[in-house]
């Protein structure tokens, strides 16, 4: 299962520029760009929390799970 970053969608909805957002949450514009393109190894909870605060959204609005390579054949029992 792949994690897709929808940060660009949320930024467009909130009409926030990358430079402004990066300064607001305390990361470099380059790292924000890497995050938008999904080329980062991971995201810290602190950064995710700041993004949600700055964009007034939930983590689920920024991150989406999609079936991809290496998915389980079926969900574990008890999962919705």
């Amino acid at each position, binding site marked *: 299962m792949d994690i897709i970053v929808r940060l660009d969608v949320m930024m467009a909805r909130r009409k926030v520029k990358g430079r402004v957002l990066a300064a607001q949450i305390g*990361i470099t514009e380059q*790292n*924000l760009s*890497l*995050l938008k393109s999904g080329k980062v*190894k*991971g*995201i*810290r909870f602190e*950064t995710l929390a700041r993004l949600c605060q700055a964009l007034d959204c939930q983590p689920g609005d920024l991150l989406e799970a999609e079936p991809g390579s290496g998915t389980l054949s079926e969900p574990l029992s008890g999962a919705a």
Partner: protein
Amino acid sequence: MTHITFTRRARLLAWGACLILCALPLLAAVAIAQGAFTEAAVRDTFNHVTINGPVSQAALWLYRAEAMICFGLVLWTFYLLYEWLEACGRGHALEPHTARYALRLGQPLLGLAVLNIAGQTVMILALTYGNAAGERSLSIGIEGYDVMLLLAAAILTLFGYIQNEAARLNIENERFV
């Protein structure tokens, strides 16, 4: 220890290593000028060995060759030490190329220890080869100095592996936003 303190101390130590690196050839030149490679010096170094007759030219040149190789290894050690400390002083302590210097530092020390042990054996054999039958010697000895060199080589190599792992983790950490 703050990052600035660490880099400052690393730069100071790098300067120290550089000074030693520059001084060693001068000291070697002085030692050679004062007869470090003469027959008398060889007899003095191996005063515990019975040498009948003059020291052969082959033994003399073997002694000189061993000394020059050891000197080269010492120079290489200080060069690697300088490069390692210089990289740490520039703030590149947790980068793979810096860790490689630490990894390689153990190699010349290991070489020095092995050369010292083997060199002593070969030299004693060469010096006593001209003796009468029954008076030739073959001895293998490991001194405290050799053990310390081996220990230092092992510790530095291990430290190099640890620093390499730290560099890998640092790269991985930087990929977290």
